[in-house]
Structure formats: C-alpha cells, structure tokens
C-alpha cells in the first residue's frame, strides 16, 4: 500500500496509506482531507478534486484524457502544468512517497 502525502490548503501534510486501485480522490474523501470535495463521487464530472502533483508523479502518470483535460480548463483555482483531477489517479506501488498538493479552492 503506497504512502501518499496530501498537503491541505493550510499547508498541513496528511500522509495516507492508499490501497492499490483506489483513486486519490477516494482516499482523500474517506479520510476527510481538507481542500478536496469530490462531489460527483469520482466520475470526472465536477472538477472539485483538483490537485497539483509532484514532479515524479508528473512523469509517472499517464497524461490526462480528453474529458479530464476539458474539466481542468475551468478549475476554480489556478491551473498549472501539474494540475490533475484526483479521481483520475489510481494508487499503485509506483506512487510510493508521492506528494499531492490541494489548491485554495475547488469551486
């Protein structure tokens, strides 16, 4: 089970052991991490699980698909090159030690 650290908007780090196959949204939502809403339950339909991934994650993850790209174009907080939707990132052993930062706002 990889350990992934979520940085809340306050700067508070929340390290979580995320079961493989879970999305990062599911892990953050179930564990009540601040700064992430995940309103649609993980359907890539609401853009309220926007996050910034670290450099290693950027190179590891497959690039976003069209739908995620479309949602990212209109996220509430600043869109950056490392912006992703947490519901589209699945945990795997390769993600061990990754850091995901949550933006100031989601809507």
């Amino acid at each position: 089970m990889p350990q992934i650290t979520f940085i809340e908007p306050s700067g508070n780090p929340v390290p979580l052991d995320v079961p493989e196959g879970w999305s990062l949204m599911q892990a953050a939502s179930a564990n009540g991490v601040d700064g992430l809403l995940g309103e649609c339950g993980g359907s890539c339909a609401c853009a309220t699980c926007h996050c910034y991934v670290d450099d290693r994650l950027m190179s590891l993850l497959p690039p976003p698909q069209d739908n995620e790209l479309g949602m990212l174009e209109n996220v509430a907080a600043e869109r950056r090159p490392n912006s992703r939707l947490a519901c589209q990132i699945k945990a795997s052993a390769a993600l061990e030690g990754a850091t995901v930062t949550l933006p100031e706002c989601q809507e």
Partner: protein
Amino acid sequence: MAAVVAADDPVVIIGAGQAGTLTAEALRSGGHVGPITLLGDEPHGPYHRPPLSKAWLAGEMGEAQLMLRAPEVLAKKGITLRTGTQAVAIDREARQVRLADGTSLPYAGLVLATGAAPRTLALPGADAANVLPLRSRDDASRIAAALARCAGKQQPVVVIGGGFIGLEVAATARKKGLLVTVLEAGPRLLGRVLAPMLSDWFADLHRGHGVELVLQSRIEHIVTEGGEAVAVRLVDGRRLPCGLVVLGVGVSANDALARAAGLECEQGVVVDACARTSDPRIVAAGDNTARRLADGSLLRLESVHNATEQAKSAAAALLGQERPFTATPWFWSDQYGRKLQMAGLSTGADAWALRGELGGAAFSVFHYRAGRLVAVDSVNDAKLHLLARKLLDAGMSPAPEQVADAGFELAGLLAR
C-alpha cells in the same frame, strides 16, 4: 443576524447522506464547538451515492471506496455518527427529536436531511421480491446480485422508467451482456430534462447497444410466480419475460417528519434560498427540500450539487449567516462511456441551438426560453459544460447563431 445556535449548543442532524454529512462538517469548520449528532437510518456510514447506479452496480469498486467519510474521520471532528437510528418525531416545543428506541435527543438547532424515497408503482405484481428500486447502497447491492443471477440463468431484465437511474442501470446491465428492455411511459427518454434531439440521440445510443426500447408503453401488470416477477405484460398484449424488474420512476421527498411537526411542506420541506424552514431553529438540505423562489414557485432539485450547496447554506443559517444558494444547478450522467453534463434548468424551453455535431465526439445543446439561454446539455464536452455554468451564472445569453458557429469563441463573452 443572530446565531440560532450558541457555539456550545447541541445540533441534531436527521439524515447521514451527502447533505447531512456536509452540514455537520460545515458547522464544525464554521466554528460550532457544541455536540453534533448525525443520525442515519441505514446501517452504513455516509457514502457516495452517484456511483451506485454506475461503478458500484458494475462491481468495479469496493465498500470502502464508496465511503464519503470514514466513521473515524467524523469521530475525530467530534461528530457523533449514529447509524441504524431512526428519528420518529420532532417535538418543536420541547426542542427534541424522538428516536425509534423511545429515547429523545435535545437540540438547539435541527437539520433535516432526510433525502427522498423511490416511488413505487400501483400495479399488480409490483410487490414481487425481484421488483427493485435503486436508491440506497443496499438497493444497489440487491440489484447487482439479481443481475448476476439473471446472467447465470440467461434471463432478461426489464427496466421501468427511461430516466437517469433506469438508463444507467440499463447501460450497466448491457455491459454485463444481459438482455434489457426499457419501458418509458412518455414519448421520449429523459423527456423532462433533455431537448427532443438529445432524447432521440440517447434512444439511438441505447438501441445501438442492444437495448429494446418501448416508448409510450402502458403496463398492464407484472406477472408473478411464487412471489417472483417472471414477466411484464403490456396493455398492447406483449409479454416481456424477465428475471428482474428495476423501478426507476422517480422519487418523493421524505418530508413526513417535517409535516407531522407542522413545518410548511409542499412537494418537500419548503426552504428559502438559505435553507431555512418555517421554524427558525430548523434548516433543511438535500433531496427532501423544495425551495421557494422569489416569484413564489417551488423548485425541487435532486442532485449532489444541490445537497452540497444547501448543506453549506443550512450550516451558515444556524450560525447566523445568510448564505443563499444561487449558483446554476448542474447534473450529470454516465452511459456507455458517454458523459452527459447538464447546466441550468431546461423547464419550459421552447428553442434549441446545437454546438458541434449531434453524435460527434463532443457536442452540446443550448436551451432557450422566451429568447434567453436557460440550460446547456453537453455530451463528452466537459470544457463547454464548465463554460456554460459560468455563462449562466453571469446571466449571459449568447445568440443561437453564435452557439451554432463553431468559430465563435463563447468564452470571449465572459472576458468582456
């Protein structure tokens, strides 16, 4: 505005779904330090409801992944979650909620987040054991088990109702290779929400995936054998054999508690834009509410977005702040890998404009009422959906010619 509840007063929340849970959290983050009790009548803690008719039904996610919040997370926030607990009455004078076990909980502020219940059909045979609605996690689990049984015995499935729930279940059942018939009483699918051209496109989508679709269907009765539905008989004489009937015929607000307590109810618990009921100590959020609009009419929304927004308004109201929910409502559905996202309310629309090509990779239908844009439905067009929400929030109404012109930059309207 004075706070309804003092910082250390007890708050009771009836309903541990999306609205109830988020109200509890918003109260905490808003500075409320007093006891918060979250009552849920299901045996499970708060969970995400949208996947129930999609990934959960398809068996693609586990129990823990469905959790909206783990119970220990709520405990850490000082929110007392009581599952399997039913509230049976509200005593507004004594400010107490009476529970099924005979005990009572005192409150200074009360939140009604009781959700909605699936409608049933007054048809002979509708009480058979394998005629199932889809609302709760247990409902969805029962349908998943029944789908597996049908697959094993090669029995078809009949879905009654061509709305979102019915169509999502149909799509999931087809994905599992089951024979599916959808019966819709109206002349088209999703008739209350979609433009006619999009209804037709959805009908083609389902037919193209092998769903038998019967529009304007009239059901005579459900044929049962030994308490199990074995077929659905239509008025025109057709007999549709089946191993499962799924009911997707809408929901009714759970407002019985509020009604019995004398709160104003009409199609649901009547609230204002700030989620306040007719009793200043009681707020309501989610599928159980009907919002009174400025013109006096009532708006019923059944969506996660509404639950989330009303939860924030409800918590704010108890804390003495006005936080009206005025943002453009939005909804979505997933069927066969197509994502439909809707912004605004298309009720009463009388003209439509198409952006993109109907059935193309990404396209959207703009709804107009009396010449003004009121809603936009997008298929696999996430970027446009979010832009549409901004346009509607800003009260903008691009002309149908601008919408139809792919070269016209709609986002440019916002920048002006």
